[in-house]
């Protein structure tokens, strides 16, 4: 492992920033999120930013292609992709797992989303091993290992040793980035890692997808749907929610085809062209969201589409709590 004194963190990031843009968790105008690193920036090292790193790979608004309509002529052209390599820093294991979830969707064997794949390709991810559990964290219940980042997404694992950080490259790409600041790093074997704090919130999830497959018409949904405002806070802050809409941005003859985030909690999400609304209310929407996360996705990919980051627990204006839901389902089933 390579050791960096915490006091040298700023130098380290500056050195990296000479080679490529570096993205770090920080507070921007009162909202914690991942943002381009600038010298002397205050980084958010305990806890997760409110906004997950999902937008780095799946931006809230992204142009897919451009076009021009003149008379009967329609010209279509790809976006000029000028993206260069970048480094994404201090991604929690839950959020790393979130990126793995997105990979399942956008880089599946059947179809690869070029723009998503490109962003994944150019981004080196530094995971940060858990150094403090919040009361809303339940990652372990959702198959996330706080000890070890999912190597399918993480390139470097970072360990918080108190006064030092230890870096462990998980692959060649990670090594390459670390080498850019080799002079600040010292090699050390047998690093003693502090224990990962215990999750306060632990859910029983064994057999959950199977149990859920019988709940479609169960009364439990009524308890959860009642409170829902129908806003998009949960879906937009969620590191794994990945629904999008396709829109045009038009200026006379010129246009851009945009991909924008969408939320299954919005009425318009399932609204059909003729005005039919198959998902009629809050209940149907919440049910779809929870079942997608805990049953449908699991059935397809053998992993939950929830990483237990706890953002929705604390940020839902009405405190709709997916962990409570899981507990209740498991409890009711065992009754």
């Amino acid at each position, binding site marked *: 492992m390579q050791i960096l004194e915490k006091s040298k963190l700023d130098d380290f990031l500056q050195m990296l920033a000479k080679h490529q843009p570096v993205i770090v968790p920080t507070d921007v105008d009162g909202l914690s999120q991942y943002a381009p690193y600038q010298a002397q920036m205050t980084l958010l090292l305990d806890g997760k930013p409110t906004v997950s790193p999902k937008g780095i790979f799946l931006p809230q608004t992204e*142009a897919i292609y*451009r*076009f*021009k309509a*003149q*008379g*009967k*002529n329609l*010209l279509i*052209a790809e*976006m*000029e992709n000028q993206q260069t390599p970048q480094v994404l820093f201090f991604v929690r294991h839950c959020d790393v797992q979130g990126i793995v979830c997105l990979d399942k969707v956008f880089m599946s064997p059947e179809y690869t989303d070029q723009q998503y794949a490109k962003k994944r390709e150019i981004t080196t991810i530094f995971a940060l091993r858990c150094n403090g559990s919040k009361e809303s964290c339940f990652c372990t219940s959702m198959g996330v290992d706080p000890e070890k980042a999912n190597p399918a997404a993480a390139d470097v694992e970072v360990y918080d040793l108190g006064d030092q950080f230890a870096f462990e490259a998980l692959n060649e790409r990670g090594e390459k980035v670390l080498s850019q600041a080799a002079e600040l790093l010292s090699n050390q074997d047998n690093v003693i890692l502090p224990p990962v704090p215990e999750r306060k919130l632990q859910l029983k999830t064994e057999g959950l997808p199977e149990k859920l497959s019988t709940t479609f018409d169960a009364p439990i949904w009524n308890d959860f749907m009642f409170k829902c405002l129908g806003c998009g806070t949960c879906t937009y802050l969620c590191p794994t929610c990945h629904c999008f809409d396709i829109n045009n*941005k038009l*200026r006379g*003859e*010129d246009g*851009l085809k945009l991909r924008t985030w969408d939320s299954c909690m919005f009425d318009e999400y399932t609204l059909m062209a003729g005005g039919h609304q198959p998902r009629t209310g809050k209940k149907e929407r919440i049910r779809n969201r929870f079942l997608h996360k805990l049953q449908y996705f699991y059935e397809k990919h053998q992993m939950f589409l929830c990483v237990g980051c706890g953002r929705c627990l604390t940020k839902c204006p009405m405190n709709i709590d997916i962990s409570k839901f899981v507990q209740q389902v498991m409890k009711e089933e065992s009754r």
Partner: protein
Amino acid sequence: MSDHTEQIKTAENGFEPKILVFACNWCTYAGADLAGLSRLEYPPNVRVLRVPCSCRVNPQFVIRAFQRGIDGVLVAGCHPGDCHYTTGNYYTRRRFLLTKRLLDFVGIDSERFHVRWISGAEGPKFQEVVTDITAAIKAIGPNQKLCDYFPTETLLPNEGGDNQ
């Protein structure tokens, strides 16, 4: 009159703003027509958008125009009491008294948004108002605020349409 001609000639700093005028059909649009009938010259920066009544103008139209990069907006209708629809402009007045202040509050320069009462008989006033507004906006330069820029580097070349 000679003042206005002077202004048209002298403001030549190169920047030619585009100004949108929402004009009610019965008073201001008629006033603008009268300015034409009377051959009252004014700068060619203004474009009139005809609405039945100034009360048809939704403040959201104004914000939209700024989003699309307009340099200035004028909403104009009949004088209070003279509305063709009796009360329309009283609502216009309330709505835009607030809108003007809200635009100001979010940092839009106050020169960029105006409301005026211009009757069908006030061709000269139409000339004067649009001339003054044009001059004032020329002085403060192009509008950058609220703009939802369309990335121009993504524009495709104009190849002309086969339209006939």
